[in-house]
């Protein structure tokens, strides 16, 4: 079907204007950034909202700021911008790698980090890489800004912790420092691919011992998830082939993936462990 329903789209010029619109049920609209998820969903029959509020190019959402210990990436920053923002690559390399696997160049030019997070698909490409930073999300409303840890942000299948009056402002992400990051996506093909399984990791190894490990997977649960049991198992242990074997098996025992059109539960379970192996073997 062609989309012919009318939709009232507001284009606020500032964040202040946008949060004011969202504050009242009368003016509140579906938040629309690059539209790369929403437009496809609407074309596929998801009911089209009466009102939308565009946050595309809102100046407050488009900045990347680098602090001594962290970086803050505006929710409106596109995947293409991230991919090409070489000055931050060394701080969040997994996120950059993830952004470069979103759709293809055209999608990357419109899709935003905030939109990817808000869409809350378990297969959202940037979510695992965000999760392993241990960072947080800044949510703005008329009552101010609040900070929600990323670990608490995705609350269920396509559910996020933001209230209806809140707009994702930015992601506050600790720099990786001496830790090593890795990202790997198993997709359906080389481009324009939704993941079957993907993993991001941030692991700090000192003198052969794992000091801390953060490992997150996408497409294996209703939300992107951290592998807390595997992380706890690895912390403080000497890196060895045996440890890697055990971590792989533990990951496979931990996850509860489902079968769908893209993959099988068995493969996802196996591949989850394989990607944990991949993260550890490349330290």
């Amino acid at each position, binding site marked *: 079907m062609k989309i012919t329903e009318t939709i009232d789209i507001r284009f606020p010029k500032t964040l202040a204007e946008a949060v004011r619109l969202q504050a009242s049920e009368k003016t509140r609209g579906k938040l629309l950034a690059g539209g790369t998820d929403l437009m496809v969903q609407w074309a*596929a029959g998801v009911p089209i909202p009466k009102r939308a509020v565009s946050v595309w190019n809102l100046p407050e959402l488009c900045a990347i700021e680098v602090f001594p210990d962290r970086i803050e990436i505006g929710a409106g920053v596109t995947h293409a911008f991230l991919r090409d923002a070489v000055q931050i690559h060394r701080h969040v390399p997994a996120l950059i790698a993830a952004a470069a696997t979103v759709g293809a160049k055209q999608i990357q030019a419109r899709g935003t980090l905030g939109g990817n997070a808000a869409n809350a698909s378990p297969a959202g490409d940037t979510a695992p890489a965000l999760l392993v930073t241990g960072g947080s999300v800044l949510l703005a409303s008329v009552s101010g800004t609040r900070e929600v840890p990323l670990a608490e942000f995705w609350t269920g299948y396509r559910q996020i912790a933001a209230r209806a009056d809140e707009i994702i402002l930015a992601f506050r992400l600790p720099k990786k420092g001496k830790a090593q990051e890795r990202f790997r996506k198993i997709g359906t*093909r080389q481009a324009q691919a939704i993941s079957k399984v993907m993993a991001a990791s941030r692991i700090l190894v000192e003198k052969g011992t794992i000091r801390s490990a953060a490992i997150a997977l996408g497409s294996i649960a209703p939300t992107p998830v951290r592998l807390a049991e595997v992380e706890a198992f690895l912390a403080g242990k000497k890196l060895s082939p045996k440890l890697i074997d055990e971590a792989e098996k533990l990951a496979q025992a931990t996850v509860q993936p489902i079968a769908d059109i*893209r*993959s099988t539960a068995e*493969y996802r379970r196996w*591949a989850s462990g394989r990607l944990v192996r991949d993260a550890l073997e490349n330290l």
Partner: protein
Amino acid sequence: MTKRTSQSVRWVGQGMPRVDADGKVRGTTRYVNDVDYKGVLHGVVVRSPVARGILKGLVPDPAFDWSPIVLATAKDVPGENVVVMHDRTMPLIAEIGAEIRYRGEPVAVVAARTPELAAEAARRVRVEVEELPPLLTLQEAIAIFKATPEKLDSMKSQDIVKGDVATGFAAADEIVEAEYWAGHQEQLYLENQGLVVFPQKDGSILAEGSIQCPYFPVHELNDCLKLPPEKIRVRQTAIGGAFGGKEEYPTMLIGYAALPALKSGKPVKIAYERNEDILFTTKRHPVWVRYKTGVKKDGTLTAIECDFILDGGAYLTISDVVMFRGILHCAVAYRCENVTIRGKVARTNSFPCGAFRGFGAPQAIWGIESHVDAIAARLGRAPHEYRRQIHARPGDVTPTGQVLSKENGSTACLELALKRADFAKKLKQVSRGRLRKGQRKLYGVGLAFFAHGSAFTGDGEAKFKAKGRVELARLEGGKPVVDIRVSSTEMGQGVHTIFTQIAADALSLPPAHVRFPMADTGLVPNSGPTVASRTTMVVGNVVHRAAQDLKRQIEAFASLRFFQGAPAELRASQLVAPGAKPVPFAKVAKALLAEIGPASGFFQFELPADIRWDQATFKGDSYPGYSWSANVAEVEIDPLTCELEVKRVTAIVDVGRVINPTLAAGQVEGGLTQALGYAIMEKIGTGKNGLYDAARLQTYIIPTALDVPEYDVKFVEYPYSFAPPGGKGLGELPMDGLAPAIANAVEAATGRRLRQIPITPESIFAALHAPQGGTP
């Protein structure tokens, strides 16, 4: 610019740019959805909500305003409710009280001034069906066949028998037996299905749209619409890809649109969006094929026994012929004295399968080419060495008894592919399940070798007698132009360009003088459908001969008019006669048009008189000619994830005379890429709800540019000399063999044989972790 001699003006064999390139590159080409049809109604098909049941009623919602809506049901079918394809079983539209046989079977058509209103009206028709248990998949049908073969509901069966397989098996040292599966494949043309039906004052209809075979509906809708062929006129608009998907399906679409059009007297357009197009149009037939082969220690194939069963879906439509082409390709490429092939078309409660590039041959070749590797492995022979021994070559006799002529470049294809791919050396590097020193990924190389029969099966072309004209009938901008009048359609494959080249050479005129208007059954004779890898070989010959006929007429006129009866020849755009000053073609043509009127060259295709074919026994010359190919695929499999990457493909191709090397190579690469998708990505099946389970571009995965391997495509030319300029079939051949080449490469990489495509990371994982995977 220096003046060319007549010898130098040869357009055939040159990579001339496409004649339709300009509009397509600039975006000015108008497809059916680009045209603003004034006063047209938009049609939407109302469909069965279940896969099987008895249609009890159609209840229009009384709360809905039906006054602006045209609602057509089976009651509005003017004649007998049947679409006449290869049988008379399929109604155009289901009738109350009749059995619904697949999910989405049309039960009504609504039409309204806007697509939205029509869609709303379609939703407001309640379709009442008393459900019956469906049989949805080939897997279920094959389970029945294996338990009790005669219980399989086969819509058409056909055997090929040569020699006696019992004798062959008795003489064998080894018996190798295995089964192979392949699923549906979607054509995924860029432009969705769409057409418009205009009712005419005299009761006839004119249909135009994205239609691959304009003459099909002319002869398939007569009973149903109660219209003789001359009252059904069909013409193509620019076609954005078809691949067989717009071969027989548009007949039904014309029928659906014709009902509200005839009822209302207004033109009706039906154009599908992508989701509807994938859900409710034809796919490639799924196949189950079982080979049992007998082989001597020295490699001699003593017997090939084969069961080849296609999933036809709910109605036969054209599936019998798909199965025929399938069984004719099950064993044609190898030497064997004793062959029995049994083909069947299983009926399931799924959408009727239909034409798709290859037309049964890719399914057959998927099986045999996997199986030949399995036989070689059993014998301890290298796959290429073994094929060198047993492959068919000139003088050999096919399973139907056809003696292969000298015009078969089978050996040349095989040898050049092995050489260019450096196959023997690469075979030594394959991983067989364990990384070799220096390898980070499992490496495999695989070979497939195959033929594709050109043109209609058997004596089809002899009976059909393709007709065509080449006309000198008009001036364009004051200059005379020659029109090619055949029913072949341009759908992206390049026929407008290569026929322009053929006509230009035959007339000794530059291509700038030649036009190829789009096919219109009101204006062109029936040169047959644009299918079966027949166009270049058969219709190309018709164009060549008809252009020669026109050339003779122009020369005869020039002789009398300009050369006092001296014999004249049209050569390099001039009429020349001995001892006389040449006269430019344009001057002669204008004089001819002014003084006599249009001239038309005509030809009707014939096959050599000694062609023999018995349709009842499937004995004789099954195709007028064969194209050949050998494909080598190199793959890498990541042992970490089982992800598969096809790195390099070598394809050596004998399609006879290559008319346009640039377009031909492009068509080969395109076909290989479509075959790549078939082999490793494209997965779609009938779900439990009776609908295809991957009906969006998000879920139906085809290769992107980044998935395409490095291609090495080369031609060897063994022309079909009976029909100048000597092309053989090209369109389908590149689709035929890459899947088994990849499966053979995967076997070499992993040590496991995968007998179902697509081969995905999931299936490689499952094979590697199965307790006993992969024999023989």
